[in-house]
């Protein structure tokens, strides 16, 4: 393909470079602040590098220092344990991403390939749910989970999205429709039942779309805030996003514990950064692929 003529390229690259700096600088500033002793914040508010770099902020928010040390390093003395919240976030995200992908694949396969009366009707009803936005089911779902006594439990947190989302069913069914029938017929003649075909043929052939749905669900669950805030605010189920909000509230309004907050923020960015480094190509392709989640 023809590229922009040489002279025009320089300003074009310059614009891209500026966009990249604007995109990445806030992350740099987050890490830079997390590595700064609290006492230096007031004297060095514009310094590009921490003058006395320290890991104490990470240690104290991970609960690895004594209360006195934490207070000396600028903490409020409130008990915080980001190691636990990080683990909670990983469990929350992992459970939803794997279970939802798997169950939606099963449903998508049934809708795409198995013959049963009422198939089109049931599928139509499920797809109609795409029209109901999360804000509308949020309140009744909260009441339901509350009445079931599941507030403050992992079960209550993952319940609404563990089994399905209409979009994932729709997306996976679309892909399964494109798998050639002959392959399945052959597998059936070899003595496989529907489960055998699904497990041995369909799933292995659908790695791309499964990873796409798995990744988008991972990102969505990792970023999720409102539902875990309503249902899992308690210490034992608190995920990172909720913990950061609570942490911000706990620190006095006039002078938030910025170094601690930025250390916590860094922890919430680190896993997605790793995801991007190891699965960047896949993730970028997922966007081209699904385009709408």
């Amino acid at each position: 393909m023809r590229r922009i003529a040489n002279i025009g390229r320089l300003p074009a690259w310059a614009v891209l470079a500026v966009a990249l700096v604007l995109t990445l600088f806030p992350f740099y500033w987050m890490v830079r602040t997390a590595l700064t002793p609290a006492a230096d914040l007031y004297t060095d508010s514009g310094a590009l590098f921490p003058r006395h770099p320290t890991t104490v902020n990470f240690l104290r928010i991970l609960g690895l220092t004594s209360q006195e040390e934490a207070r000396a390093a600028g903490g409020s003395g409130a008990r915080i344990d980001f190691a636990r919240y990080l683990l909670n976030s990983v469990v929350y995200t992992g459970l939803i991403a794997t279970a939802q992908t798997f169950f939606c694949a099963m449903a998508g396969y049934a809708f795409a390939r198995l013959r049963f009366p009422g198939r089109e009707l049931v599928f139509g009803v499920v797809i109609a749910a795409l029209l109901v936005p999360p804000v509308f089911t949020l309140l009744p779902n909260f009441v339901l989970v509350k009445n079931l006594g599941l507030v403050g439990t992992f079960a209550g947190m993952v319940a609404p999205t563990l089994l399905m989302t209409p979009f994932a069913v729709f997306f996976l069914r679309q892909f399964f429709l494109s798998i050639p029938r002959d392959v399945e017929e052959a597998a059936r003649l070899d003595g496989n039942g529907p489960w055998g075909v699904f497990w041995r043929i369909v799933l292995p052939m659908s790695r791309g779309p499964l990873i796409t749905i798995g990744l988008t669900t991972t990102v969505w669950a990792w970023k999720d805030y409102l539902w875990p805030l309503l249902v899992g605010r308690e210490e034992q189920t608190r995920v990172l996003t909720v913990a950061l909000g609570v942490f911000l509230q706990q620190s006095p309004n006039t002078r938030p514990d910025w170094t601690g907050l930025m250390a916590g923020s860094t922890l919430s960015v680190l896993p997605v950064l790793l995801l991007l480094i190891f699965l960047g190509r896949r993730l970028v392709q997922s966007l081209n692929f699904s385009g709408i989640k």
Partner: protein
Amino acid sequence: MRTAERSQVAEPGDDAGADAHRRRRARPRDDRRAAWLFLIPALAGFVIFYGYPTVRGIWYSLTDYNLLSAPAFVGGDNYARLVRDPQFWHSLAVTVYYVVVNIGSQLLLGLLLAALMHRLTRSVALRAMLLLPWLVPNVTVGLIWIWLLDADLGFVNHLLKALDLGTVGFFVSPEWAMPTIGMVNTWAYTGYTALLLYAGMLQIPPHLYESAALDGAGELRMFRSVTLPMLRPVLALVLVVSLIGSFQIFDTVAVAARGGGASSAIRVIYYFIYQHAFQYFHMGYASAAALLLALVLGVLTVVQMRLLRASRSDLA
């Protein structure tokens, strides 16, 4: 979208092949039992957490319900009250203001970035870096920017001071708060928007650019006469998807409010619903507001589904 195209080809295959047909008739397959077994988990999730709550939500919106005693039917009272509630209209106005600011800047910047990438580089690394803000929780995004824009110690105000421009209390001043939240979310979502548009641009046949170049068209002319018109279906889709997302802004506002309740300048509709439901315990009233918002989003979703089909045929 690509899979959708293929499915159209695959669907007629349902009865393709006389062989398969004969085989099927000879030994009619009954998948009924297997099918329902495959569907049990997803259908359970659907009925319990999508179907039932939808009906429940409509019912709550017609009741007075404080979560403690049983809902009491009040007919259309909640809706009548909503229409007369200046706070509701205000939160709606704030939301629309946010949506306009956010979508406008996000689409223009996204289009610019996508066009530059399209003509300059296919680097996956670059795209991955632009995607990073989208991957980060909105709460983290909010925190990072509250810190960067802090009135006393924030880096941005440090720069403004150094340039003798005076400091701004971005998140605390009533007239700055909402544009600030708009800008912050533009930062968070522009990369994502740019990549969706870029994906659309990749589907434009390269020979169109080659012949335009032969005709002596410059880059700007090519953008206007080739890229934009060819991209229109994708652009429309991305616009609607961003609109649906923008109307549901909550996390950034919740963080900016710092638990003290959002000032009216940033009390968007989602926050209005949240407050009435979980701070004042007016479930019925909140459900009515949620239903009105759901209607807006539902209309947008119908448009989106239409566009999905339209973009499919346009770029095939």
